[in-house]
């Protein structure tokens, strides 16, 4: 059974009397251990799709099965739990909390977790792995973009989720930092994590094993 199954997903936004259909009849399966890139032009609906897969937004119609469970039937607490335990998020603009240092930022998911993990130890190991162990007490404002994104990656991994969702993770980074970030994601994938990457950059998408193209809210064949 597929880890992620979308069937006939539609997402319609209402702006006054205006109906904006952002996603049209999206059906798609992602297997455990996949590295999938979602590509498309700006405004094509990539992020919207990622938010739905990430249980941050719900489709207007259609079915979404995550690990065989129907997400649309879950209440908010259940969705929070799934986001906390099964999903990791990486965003273009990092979203590191400015008043917390690197270590504290990385540990935020553990606040909401009941998983029995030695979070601090794991955080130290993961920070070591992305070469950030010397900056554990730094504030986000004291880090470069690439460093921030590496911290965000560690944060997404702290709860050991099955799926990592990355929305333009290299969007604000130079080519060297981008390469670093993508190599980390590849490495995670090779260790079994399912990675879903949203990007409009073919260079970045090349790291994925499979690419899904979206145009005007529809999946198109390349």
């Amino acid at each position, binding site marked *: 059974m597929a880890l992620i199954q979308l069937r006939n997903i539609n997402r319609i936004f209402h702006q006054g009397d205006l109906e904006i259909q952002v996603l049209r009849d999206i059906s798609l399966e992602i297997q455990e251990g996949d590295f999938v890139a979602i590509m498309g032009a700006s405004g094509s609906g990539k992020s919207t799709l990622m938010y739905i897969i990430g249980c*941050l937004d719900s489709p207007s119609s259609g079915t979404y099965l995550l690990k065989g469970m129907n997400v649309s039937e879950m209440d908010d607490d259940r969705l*929070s739990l799934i986001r906390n335990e099964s999903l990791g998020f990486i965003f273009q603009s990092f979203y590191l909390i400015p008043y917390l240092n690197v270590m504290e930022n990385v540990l935020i998911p553990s606040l909401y977790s009941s998983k029995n993990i030695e979070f601090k130890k794991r955080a130290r190991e993961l920070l070591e792995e992305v070469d950030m162990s010397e900056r554990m007490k730094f504030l986000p404002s004291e880090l470069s973009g690439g460093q921030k994104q590496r911290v965000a990656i560690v944060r997404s991994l702290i709860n050991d989720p099955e799926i990592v969702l990355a929305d333009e993770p290299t969007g604000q980074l130079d080519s060297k930092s981008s390469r670093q970030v993508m190599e980390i994601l590849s490495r995670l994938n090779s260790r079994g994590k399912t990675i879903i990457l949203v990007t409009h950059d073919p260079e970045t998408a090349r790291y994925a094993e499979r690419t899904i193209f979206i145009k005007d809210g529809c999946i198109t064949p390349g």
Partner: protein
Amino acid sequence: MAASLLGKNLFLTSVIKALRQNPARSLFALCGISLGIASLVFIVAAIEGSNQNAHNIIKLLGPNSIFVRSGFGDKTRVRRLTYRIDIRDFYNLKRVYGVKSAAFLLLKQRRISAGGQARNAYAVSATRDFLEVFDYELKEGRFFRSAEYSSFPKICIMGTELSRFLFGKRNPVGQRVQIARTTMTIVGVFAPKGKLPSGKSLDDRVIIPIKTYRKFIEPEYKRLFAVKLKLEPDADYDHVVSMVRKVMLKRHKKDDFVVVTPETVRKFLNIFNWTLSLYLGLASLIALFISGFVMSNIFYINVKVRAWEIGIRRALGATRQAIIYQFMAEALAISVAGAVIGSLAGFFAVRWVTPLLKIPTVYPVKSLVLAVCFSAATGLISVLMPSRAAAHLNTVHALKSRL
């Protein structure tokens, strides 16, 4: 969930750091709460102080006693301030059924000096029963002997405060003191009686046997400041009080005298407390209400400015409840800090303002608990709505709100 969240160090760290991140907003909320709490603490202090006043008066009055103080007559007409009670009242009161003993209070301010020190203080006359009826106790030396009430010995008993002023730490017994134009010998010192509610000390006086008093201090003795009665142990207190009133009203108008009993003291102070509580209570309630309103608005701003932070926390798995707890905890931290600062400010107000109100300065330590509770309640209630708003933000919108 709640327990596991609140039990984590990071939760507290995050709360404190978030508050420090926005010092202006936090400080503003803090000031509001502190002000409300300060006024609350002050009220409690004022009420406790006035209660202590009542206690002091009642204690001074002693058990099973009635104090009849002279009024100044009709206050609407300007007259010479003369005592309305006289010696005939004293004899009438002494004869009331149930009265065991009675003494009158007759005093005059005189210049008192010894060893180069001088000051004006009250010289008080003492009849045979005076020391017993007014519950004087001995600290040093002796009281007057029976024969000394019928002759004119130049002796006196001194209060501790006056003695300290004139003689410092030395024992004044046996020393000579100049009272008005007469030199007298101090035979005893009475145990401290404390202060009147007006702040006047009862130990800044000297007591002189009645005949000596009339001969050397003041011959006029018909007008009395007050009369104190001690009742028989089995007397019906309330009945005696009503008889005392009746006897007084035969010769006087209502305004000419005041009957002081524990009951009247309590009644008067109750009224005082009520008005005080009402006015100050209303004021501090308004202050707390306003501070709650300020806090609420500041947290609405917080929620708006920190929307993306709420978004990312939600994305990372925070439930709505967890977001509510976070803001509640921030409000609680401000409230507790506000309670402490407000209490300190209140204590300062107590220190400087209660003396002006002629209320004993009582630091209401108990009110600290009250302050923390009120403050916490204000904080939590006022932040209820903003934190719910935060919890119900659309996560995707919240994330996108980052500039």
